[in-house]
């Protein structure tokens, strides 16, 4: 039942477009692996944004044409990318100085779970049947000024992913600023989770039914 109803909301490209619209001119942005990478395609025409990839490139460009891939020019997901004119390369300690030192404006990450206090779990489900791997996620959430999370509103089995407390091991505590899901855009504030925007045909009541944490509506 829930699955059918969840089709009500935005698709992944539409969520990415919503995020892209919220990234201001001149921002230095780090996009996580997977879903967050979609965001780059939707930055409005004429708005200049510089992409950082933690493996040592500021000024990441589009995906190369087929046959022009260079495996020494890759992104954090180890996929071939290009560099824009004006790009620069640097080593890993400098790259994470940019991250940890608060020089990157916005990071968009995927999420397994987010809590009402903005705790993020996105690296491990705590199960012992897979090799643990963390990459740069913990550094990103501890150092980047603004953290956006993009994810489906509920898990594949319909269980809420926005919770009072995360049940999976944390990536960081109180780090998320805004959550973009297929159903809504939600701000994490000192006063709790505040719904900024509902996807078309999604009611606040339906959203709350699919969210464990308490939501409140933006007062206008």
């Amino acid at each position: 039942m829930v699955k059918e109803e969840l089709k009500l909301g935005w698709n992944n490209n539409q969520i990415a477009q919503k995020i892209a619209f919220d990234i201001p001119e001149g921002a230095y942005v780090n996009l996580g692996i997977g879903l967050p990478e979609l965001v780059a395609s939707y930055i409005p025409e004429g708005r200049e944004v510089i992409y950082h990839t933690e493996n040592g490139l500021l000024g990441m460009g589009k995906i190369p044409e087929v046959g022009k891939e260079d495996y020494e020019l890759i992104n954090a997901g180890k996929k071939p990318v290009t560099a824009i004119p004006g790009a620069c390369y640097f080593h890993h300690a400098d790259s994470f100085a940019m991250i940890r030192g608060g020089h990157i404006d916005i990071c968009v990450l995927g999420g397994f779970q987010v809590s009402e206090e903005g705790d993020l779990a996105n690296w491990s489900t705590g199960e012992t049947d897979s090799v643990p791997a963390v990459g740069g996620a913990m550094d990103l959430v501890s150092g980047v000024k603004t953290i956006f999370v993009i994810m489906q509103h509920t898990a594949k089995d319909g269980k809420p992913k926005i919770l009072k407390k995360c049940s999976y091991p944390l990536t960081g505590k109180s780090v998320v600023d805004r959550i973009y899901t297929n159903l809504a855009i939600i701000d994490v504030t000192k006063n709790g989770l505040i719904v900024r925007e509902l996807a078309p045909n999604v009611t606040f009541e339906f959203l709350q039914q699919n969210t464990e944490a308490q939501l409140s509506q933006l007062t206008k």
Partner: protein
Amino acid sequence: MINKIVGNLTDAVSDFFDGAILMIGGFGDAGSPIELIHAVIDHGAKDLTVISNNAGSGHVGLAALIEHKRVKKIICSFPKTANSKVFPDLFFKGEIELELNPQGTLAERIRAGGAGIPAFYTPTSVNTPLAAGKEIRIINGKENVLEFALKADFTLVKCKSADRYGNLIYNKTARNFAPIMCMASKTTIVQTQKIVEPGGINPECVVTPGIFVSRVIEIPNPASETNLVLENKKYPW
């Protein structure tokens, strides 16, 4: 005359020993010094501790070193790749130890090791399982975790150009961990695509100053890990 250039791979790694701590540059394929790693396999040193961002792919390079059971422990941030079977197999059998570090913490531990800083506090990983058992200190009202520097006996990296002093420049994102790893070990061994005369690299553009480099070997056409994995190659050939 200072001349760090060595003529063959056997000489480049001749002083390896069992139990050595080894840093290996690269972020996946990019910057992985495959020929030097294969030379270490040929050398035979075992019980190695490897510090590298990943744990290899396919059956070549670092994955081959692990597959030949030369590595007792790996310190890395992301031991998973699409084509990595070797590490997970040994990990689940309990035959290789894993110390997982956040990527930036790993980089800074290496940088600190090279810079003579024994330890540092960082906010990364506080309140996560990766901070378990580590000292926490509140600085400026914020929790931080104590992390210790990493140092190695040997570092293996790949670069684009080198001179006989060991001054290096890299290629694009193949630079990644190499410059900091060169600083953090007793013996740094570099495979370069090209050797140039002193002065052939603009001093304003040198990325790794020669003082951090012990040996340089020219490998003009290094293998691509991606291609070797696609061809399902296995080392030794």
